[in-house]
């Protein structure tokens, strides 16, 4: 379980507060207006900025001040997820060892992960020789080999077309469900949330709201969400 205990983030005049719980295995969308602090929350959970007060706890373990690498977290950004000078295989293998010295079993893991995302033929290609969708698949394969229990996504696949994006979300969601991981995904598109999220966290007006079941939320949206959806 991921818990924000009286979490308080301050950046200059900007403030964000939250006191919520997210169950292990949940797939949660984070939504809210631009500038409300979705990415700030992402950075705090990933370890790129320190909260001014409160704690972030994962399965009873306080990770508020852990360095990014020590957190049980795998990340996917909106773009720049791949190194342009490394092959698909190497980009994936970074998830296992940053110095790329893999054992045979580990190499096999990488190959398996790339196969799982449908890229068995493309291991030796560099990102420039891959389509946008294929690049996203490589990044996804890396998340899978990292075997981290918590997956954090900041508007992933935003550059892809609707059909391709839906396909990637399904692939991601299925992969994480198989491994029993927990997913936190920032998105501005209600369709993403409806597609894979069981619940939604609204970040608005300096507050991180507790997760609400997705179907129920969109049937009866709170004021902040209503304004956002228009």
């Amino acid at each position: 379980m991921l818990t924000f205990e009286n979490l308080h983030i301050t950046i200059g005049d900007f403030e964000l507060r939250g006191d919520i719980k997210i169950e292990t295995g949940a797939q949660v969308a984070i939504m809210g207006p631009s500038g409300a602090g979705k990415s700030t929350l992402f950075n705090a959970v990933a370890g790129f900025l320190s909260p001014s007060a409160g704690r972030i706890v994962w399965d009873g373990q306080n990770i508020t001040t852990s360095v990014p690498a020590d957190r049980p977290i795998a990340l996917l950004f909106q773009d720049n997820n791949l190194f342009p000078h490394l092959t698909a295989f190497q980009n994936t293998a970074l998830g296992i060892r940053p110095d790329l010295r893999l054992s045979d079993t580990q190499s096999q893991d990488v190959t398996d992960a790339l196969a799982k995302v449908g890229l068995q033929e493309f291991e030796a290609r560099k990102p420039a020789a891959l389509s946008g969708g294929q690049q996203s698949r490589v990044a996804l394969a890396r998340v899978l080999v990292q075997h981290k229990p918590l997956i954090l996504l900041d508007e992933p696949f935003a550059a892809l077309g609707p059909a391709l994006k839906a396909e990637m979300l399904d692939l991601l969601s299925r992969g994480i469900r198989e491994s029993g991981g927990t997913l936190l995904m920032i998105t501005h598109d209600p369709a993403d949330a409806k597609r894979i999220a069981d619940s939604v966290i609204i970040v608005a007006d300096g507050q991180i709201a507790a997760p609400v079941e997705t179907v129920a939320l969109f049937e009866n949206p709170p004021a902040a969400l209503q304004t956002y959806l228009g």
Partner: protein
Amino acid sequence: MAARASLTIRLFGGAAIAVLLTLSLGTLIAVLLRAEAISGFGRPEWAAVRFTLMQATLSALISVSLAIPLARALARRQFPGRSALITLLGAPFILPVIVAILGLVAIFGRNGVISNILGFPLDIYGLQGILLAHVFFNLPLATRLILQGWLAIPSERFRLAASLGFTSGNVARTIERPMLIEIVPGAFLVIFLICLTSFAVALALGGGPAATTVELAIYQAFRFDFDLSKAALLASAQFVICAIAGIIALRLSIPQVAGGELDRTLDRWDAKSPFLRLQDGVIIILSAVFLLVPLSAVVLRGLPGVLEMPVSVWQAALRSIFVTVIATTVCMAMSLSLAFFVQNIKRGKIWVEGVSLLAIAASPLVMGTGLFLILFPMMDPSRAMLFITALVNAAMALPFALRALVPALRQIEGTYGKLADSLGMHGFTRLRYLYLPRLRRPLGFSAGLIAALAMGDLGVITLFSDPNRATLPLEMYRLMASYRLEAASGAALLLLMFSLSVFWIFDKGGRVNADV
């Protein structure tokens, strides 16, 4: 743009190209024609060529090697004074060479601060002095170019690295090395080119058979022996060397120095260890001392010297202002004409840019000599000396101005071209209400650069070294050469202030009310 306007553009562009061709190739031909018997390329000439290539290679190598750790330290550390230090790294562009040399001599010279501390005199003349001065000028340039490379790495990369548990070694191998492989050859080549044609440094710190560059040999052939055939031969050699380097430069991606953008640091989770902090701190402090101390020496020694300055210094200052105004006006007119010309022709852009590079390949001393010979039958060239100097300075600064203006113009056209077309903004209207307002910043910045270059240039003017017609840098050099160091320091301070002021005035002029 409309067909009506394009005639004007062609006319101006063609005129600018004609002037450039005359200045670069025409002057070379004029010198070659006057050379009576083409003397052979003897040992001293080969020695000059070898020395030129060697010092340029070493200067570029040392500058880039020192710049890599400095740029890395600046990219990943935030400290008070960081932005001031980065501004300082831009200063050598507008710092007159001869002023910096005076500062370096004050620190590293025979009677300099370090000699006094060590108790035995250092020798700053010769190869080591030339290298010292070249590194002083080009370490900052290399650092800025490489720092840009670092800051251009998307911040997600470093976050990803932190999340994947990269050590600083992993970061160096996976993220930093590929960037360096891309940036460093270009930075090396830029500095190599600058050092190939550097004249004032060789004039002040070199000389003798062991430390004579081709450019210096041209000066000596013309000024001491009036041996035009030797000067022409050396000029051709210089032209060939620079042209080859220029062609290589066209093939490599040459990094550009952008204004600003360097005012941020990278968050680096891999570089938090005390050892790395200490290492970066030491590198930053040593570099700052190396760059600041000679300049402080100029200011400190110059202040009392201002009172010692003979009237001739003030007269020279007036002449320098005249040269600066003419050079800046001519260069801006030519570069704007060329920039619009390049923008409007469909084919042959590369040729136009090639012509502008001729100005780099041509030796300013040859340009001066050629203009002298062309004008000689018509009038007394020494009367036109200041104008020749201004014209040569304008030609030399042209590539820099074009580098700023051409991309800016392309961007304006790309962003607003269709909108302007649809509104029927053509010709003068488009120039007045679209291009000029949006070009203000690059125009101001490049005018500032040109003015500072012209103000501080100690090149072609040395050929005519007429005491009654000296510019401020030449007057300062003469005072230095006659060991009137007090007065020379005063003149140096004056020159430094003039160069900084002209840059500041133009650059500021481009920024005020420029809505971005």
